[in-house]
């Protein structure tokens, strides 16, 4: 087992909160449009499919972790040698950093479009990253605490979808499977970004008290997220007509526009403000994972690495100016995530398996 002091470890069931809070992020606000473009009213099947694929990959991750004594960086080194292995691990650090960047920049765009058009990117980015640094510097246990609260606090938002029910026609979901299977699979691929987040388990695994037992919690988290996304997709498909949905950049937010309460005229403002809680663990854990890898691979302290990564994220948010840019980084991350989860990890598993066989024979 990788050497992590017990006082900085957390219980295995916390994996549930970490994974779920990491998965639910910025994608939820507008994934429906993207998947319904290819799968139409069958998009909810794509969500289930993406969830199922996620379970397979997660099981694979746990298997890989068992092989390398719970240390993914060690696994890279074992397979590719010290030098190349470390380069690959650093690529993962960049991946997690860019995940924080994408989430933060997309959220800033939402604020700019929906609430404050004259908010400048750097102002929010700086304030938010400072908060994230403050949390992350406290260590992994603090980050987990944030994950826990940031999943519990905004969960009340679920009830707001009640208001939408008045305007849903569920017959729009019929006939089921009216689209070719290839389209449904393609849409499932587009779901990757929204599903992303459970791969953090590769790096926080050593911080779980009884790692092996955390598998069931990780799977439970993935299942819950998948069911939530499916429900949301079904609701969205029934709420909008197909071509109307395709014009909504943030379908979830547009649905909140229908919420009417005597004391609040525009509920989406509350929703967007609350969404800060949802993305906080996303960014924090992204930064943490990234800096943790740097610490293990490079001769730097985690604190230094953290500052560097945060500065990188800050500069990154400044470099993206408009909708096209935000769209681009989202689809790039979607693609990288897809290849990482569904191509690279199975390859790694295959290498590990072959290596085991060869060694067994020797």
């Amino acid at each position, binding site marked *: 087992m990788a050497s992590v002091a017990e006082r900085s470890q957390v219980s295995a069931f916390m994996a549930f909160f970490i994974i779920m809070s990491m998965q639910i992020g910025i994608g939820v606000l507008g994934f429906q449009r993207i998947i319904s473009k290819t799968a139409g009213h069958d998009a909810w099947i794509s969500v289930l499919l993406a969830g199922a694929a996620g379970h397979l990959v997660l099981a694979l991750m746990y298997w890989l972790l068992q092989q390398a004594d719970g240390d993914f960086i060690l696994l890279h080194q074992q397979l590719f040698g010290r030098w190349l292995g470390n380069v690959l691990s650093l690529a993962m650090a960049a991946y997690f950093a860019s995940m924080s960047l994408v989430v933060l920049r997309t959220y800033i765009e939402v604020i700019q479009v929906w609430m*404050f058009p004259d908010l400048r990117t750097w*102002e929010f980015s700086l304030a938010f990253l400072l908060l994230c640094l403050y949390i992350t510097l406290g260590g992994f246990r603090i980050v987990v605490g944030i994950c826990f609260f940031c999943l519990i606090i905004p969960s009340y938002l679920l009830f707001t979808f009640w208001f939408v029910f008045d305007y849903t026609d569920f017959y729009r979901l019929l006939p089921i499977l009216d689209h070719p299977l290839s389209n449904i699979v393609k849409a499932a691929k587009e779901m990757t970004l929204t599903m992303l987040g459970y791969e953090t388990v590769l790096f926080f695994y050593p911080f779980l008290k009884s790692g092996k037992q955390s598998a069931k919690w990780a799977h439970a988290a993935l299942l819950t997220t998948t069911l939530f996304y499916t429900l949301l997709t079904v609701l969205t498909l029934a709420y909008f*007509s*197909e071509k109307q949905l395709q014009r909504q950049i943030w379908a979830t937010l547009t649905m909140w526009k*229908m919420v009417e309460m005597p004391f609040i005229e525009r509920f989406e403002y509350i929703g967007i403000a609350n969404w800060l809680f949802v993305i906080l663990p996303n960014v924090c854990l992204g930064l943490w994972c990234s800096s943790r890898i740097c610490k293990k691979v490079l001769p730097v302290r985690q604190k230094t690495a953290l500052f560097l990564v945060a500065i990188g994220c800050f500069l990154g948010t400044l470099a993206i100016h408009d909708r096209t840019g935000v769209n681009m980084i989202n689809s790039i991350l979607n693609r990288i995530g897809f290849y990482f989860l569904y191509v690279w990890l199975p390859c790694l598993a295959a290498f590990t398996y072959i290596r085991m066989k060869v060694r067994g024979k020797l």
Partner: protein
Amino acid sequence: MNGKTFLLVLMAASLLSGCLRKEILDDINIESAVGFDYVSPTKIKGTVLIPIYKKEETANKTLTAVSVSTKDILEELQHKTPEPLVNGSIEVALYGKRLAEHGLFPFVDNFHRDSSIGTGLYLAVVDGTAEQLLKGHYSRQGNGIYLSNLLKHNIEQRDVPKTNLHLFLKMYYADGQDPFLPYLRQVGQDVQVEGIALFRGDRVVDYIERNNMFFFKILTDSYTEGTHTVRLQKGNYASVKNISTKRTISFSGPKTRPHLHIHLSLEGVIREHKQGPFTPSTQQAVQQQFEKEIKINASNLLRRFQEQNIDPIGLGEWAKSQYRHFSYRDFYRRYRHLPFRITADVRIRDTGIIE
């Protein structure tokens, strides 16, 4: 960096992000309703209604400007007010008859795009001009609230089908449905719901009269609370308040020759009965007569839609959900001659507190 400096930086950063444009209620003019009218093929006239809150009542102030787009009109109007105009709480948007007949979508897009406007906004078509209707003086709460309440209670408790910006856009974008909006008219000191304006695309092509609105609502909306008076023999009549409606739309036959069946089942209570006690036999008579009226009137409406080649019920959407690999084009090519059957089932549940 120690904790204190960190906190300082954090505070500075959060203070900096507070430097955004503020909108304090006393320093802005809040639009409560807007209206658009046709001027020439390229120009429209916009009217904005601003409530001015006084001690006793709300006065109405209207501003008008002529320009090419809705946003442009708003900019034009800013020149006429000492305080900035904001559109976050528009309750009603009205469109003059002439504009609606020339196509209304370009003047809805703005509302659709603007994040500060709720999708619960009511849209309506006005007989005459929207400007004139907005310039009237209707109630102490101000015209904006008056108009939105008028539409709201008629939707919730009477025979206006559910409608708002979201539903209009939903119907407009759907390939298998044409939108409709309530049709208002100024009558002296009041505004009344005159009927329903039916669209083909974004142009009004027909109007449903007031006495047909009940049947229109049960055809388009699955839930209604309207009241309908059934005329019986010998000058007798009974008023039935509708409690719940269930609408079943189904298609039979192959995709190339669909046959439509609409079944409407209603449950109601007797509100008024002119002659004598309400016996089981009169109940039977009322139910039968009501069923007959529904069948005849709903069929007439549907035939009218077919002649106009419009689909406010959304039959195309229903057909799509019942046939695999459905083609809207083929469906609407045959729409005019689509054979249909309408059946009704009325059940009187109660007769009020007397027999």
